[in-house]
């Protein structure tokens, strides 16, 4: 990234632009203001009628001229001054503090002036309206003094307050301009950040990463570029994962097919042999072959399922189901086989439904595996009991047999994978799976706490 495209530099640019614009704004304002006023031809605005200096100078000049003149002459001069400044108030106080002349005559002034009054008057007149000039007559201050008071409105140009108001408007406008420029700047940044956030949110919801289009070259553009790279990489890895999952499933399906097809052929051949005339031992051998084929079939199914299950790729579709009903129909489907093997099937399930959140296929798989185990390892007991047990800790479905138990030598072989599947599936469905085994049988519990 070039320094020039940094957001920081850009914002500095905004400030610089503002600072540059500010004087320009003033010039434009003043020009515009004057053009406006001159254009309107002094209707609203007038320059001051008198200036303060002019009045002050004239008054001190007058004082000098009056010095030494007779009273009559003094009054004549003062009347002239009154004519010159008709809006003013003029008065003359002589050396005795006597008010000798005042114009306009109705002006409210004390007749007798003491020195303290003079001092007070002068104090009050400083910076006050009207503008007051006190001039002494003569050098020795003994000749008294003359005063002119001029309302300040005649010494100031009208419309001055208006121009001060305009000045504040100008300041306000320039602040607004600054805020507006900053707002433009940050709003654009904000919009781009929000856009990024939206895309991320979308990815979270849909699992699809979309890239964003990048137009600038600043820090946010860098961020957008990084985001796009990440999105592409995530999308790729997700794709790869999907592909791997597909390959894995395909591999397992093919493996299953490749293993089972020869087994099927084997079974067919064994079956054909069975039609031949065979000795007792020959028939017995065939029965064992047939048994082992079935066992291998189950083992293949379990192995491949376990592989999918432990990789988390086994399809899982949980729903709220009446498990008593499910279990009853599973036992019903096993009944003919159990009956053929001479089992007593003792079913003790209630009529009332019990709802659990399970995947029906998984649930069936759990019980299929358990029944397979019973058939393989607990044939001697000739008993299988299925019941529902309720306790304060929860509800349990129980499968009991009267076989030799898990510790017997025959049980050690081949139960592992089937039970591993049971335990993985139970855990995944939030059920508690437990087994108790002893010399008089095995009890399996599948519980919802």
């Amino acid at each position, binding site marked *: 990234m070039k320094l020039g495209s940094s957001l920081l530099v850009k914002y500095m640019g905004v400030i610089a632009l503002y600072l540059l614009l500010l004087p320009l704004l003033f010039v434009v304002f003043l020009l515009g203001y004057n053009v406006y006023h001159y254009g309107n031809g002094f209707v609203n605005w007038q320059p001051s009628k008198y200036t303060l200096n002019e009045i002050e100078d004239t008054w001190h000049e007058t004082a000098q001229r009056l010095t030494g003149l007779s009273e009559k002459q003094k009054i004549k001069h003062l009347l002239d001054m009154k004519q010159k400044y008709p809006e003013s108030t003029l008065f003359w106080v002589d050396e005795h503090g006597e008010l000798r002349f005042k114009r306009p005559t109705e002006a409210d002034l004390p007749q007798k002036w003491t020195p303290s009054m003079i001092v007070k008057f002068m104090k009050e007149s400083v910076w006050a309206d009207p503008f007051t000039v006190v001039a002494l007559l003569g050098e020795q201050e003994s000749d008294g003094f003359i005063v002119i008071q001029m309302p300040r409105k005649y010494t100031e140009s009208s419309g001055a307050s208006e121009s001060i108001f305009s000045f504040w408007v100008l300041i306000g406008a320039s602040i607004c301009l600054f805020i507006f420029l900053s707002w433009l700047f940050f709003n654009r940044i904000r919009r781009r950040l929000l856009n990024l956030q939206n895309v991320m949110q979308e990815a979270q919801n849909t699992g699809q990463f979309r890239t964003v289009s990048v137009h600038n070259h600043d820090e946010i553009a860098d961020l957008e570029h990084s985001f796009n790279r990440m999105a592409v990489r995530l999308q790729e890895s997700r794709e790869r994962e999907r592909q791997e999952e597909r390959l894995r499933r395909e591999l397992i399906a093919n493996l299953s097919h490749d293993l089972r097809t020869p087994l099927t*052929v084997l079974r*067919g051949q064994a079956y054909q042999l069975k039609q031949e005339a065979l000795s007792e031992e020959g028939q017995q051998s065939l029965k064992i072959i047939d048994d082992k084929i079935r066992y*291998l079939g189950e083992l293949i199914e379990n192995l491949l399922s376990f592989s999918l299950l432990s990789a988390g790729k086994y399809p899982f579709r949980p729903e709220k189901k009446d498990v008593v009903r499910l279990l009853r129909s599973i036992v019903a489907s096993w009944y003919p086989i159990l009956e053929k093997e001479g089992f007593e*099937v003792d*079913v*003790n399930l209630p009529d009332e439904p019990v709802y659990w959140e399970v995947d029906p296929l998984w649930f069936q798989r759990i019980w299929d595996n358990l029944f397979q185990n019973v058939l393989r390892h607990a044939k001697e007991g000739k008993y299988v009991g299925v019941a529902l047990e309720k306790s304060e800790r929860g509800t349990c479905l129980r499968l009991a047999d009267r076989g030799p138990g898990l510790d017997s030598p025959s049980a050690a072989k081949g139960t592992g994978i089937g039970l591993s599947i049971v335990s993985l599936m139970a855990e995944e469905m939030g059920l508690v799976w437990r087994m108790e085994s002893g010399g008089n049988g095995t009890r399996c519990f599948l519980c919802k706490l």
Partner: protein
Amino acid sequence: MKHILYIEDDHEIGEWVKNDLRDRGYEVTWLTDGQDAHHYIQRVDLVILDVMLPGLDGFTVGQRLKEKAPDVPILMLSARTAIEDKVEGLTFADDYVTKPFHPEELAARVEVLLRRFASTDVQPVRLQHLDVYLSQNRVVNRETGEEVTLTGKEHRLLTYFLRHPNQVLTKEQLYEAVWGEMFAGGDNTIMVHIRHLREKLERDPSRPTVIETIRGLGYRVRL
């Protein structure tokens, strides 16, 4: 003679299944792929279909056949993992057998399927001392020669038993199949109807042999 269309690409398996089914009295047409299966579908009573076929896979073939002839039952044979095939296959297949299957198991499933779909069958089903004419709503007691009169529900119940012979059927299954409604727990409608049916069919209703009670599970009719 019932005609079975059998689609299987493995020659060894195909050969013996074909021979075994022929020995059991079926006419069998064996194809090694599903391309031309639709030419045969109108002439057959049942299809046995392998899932893994060269070209079109078994699911696609099965779906096409089912669209063309919905009343011909399809039995899927699979050598893949049972779980995924079950989810996908059972949407159109009527039954499902996993390899390595036992020939007797296959034969039994074929027989059940044929019976379930044979609505125009005029041959009576022999059920102990009874002859049941499914399509005519008729039951004859061979020992007495009398005709047994069944109500509509009783007949449907018996029909359902005979379409699912040798299977243990739970109360829920029976209720939902015959009444077409969700079974509400604790309902003893099934018990009442079974009792009436036994009174009409059994030699000794107090010791039933036609409709067995399987304690804790349901009922069964064996053929």
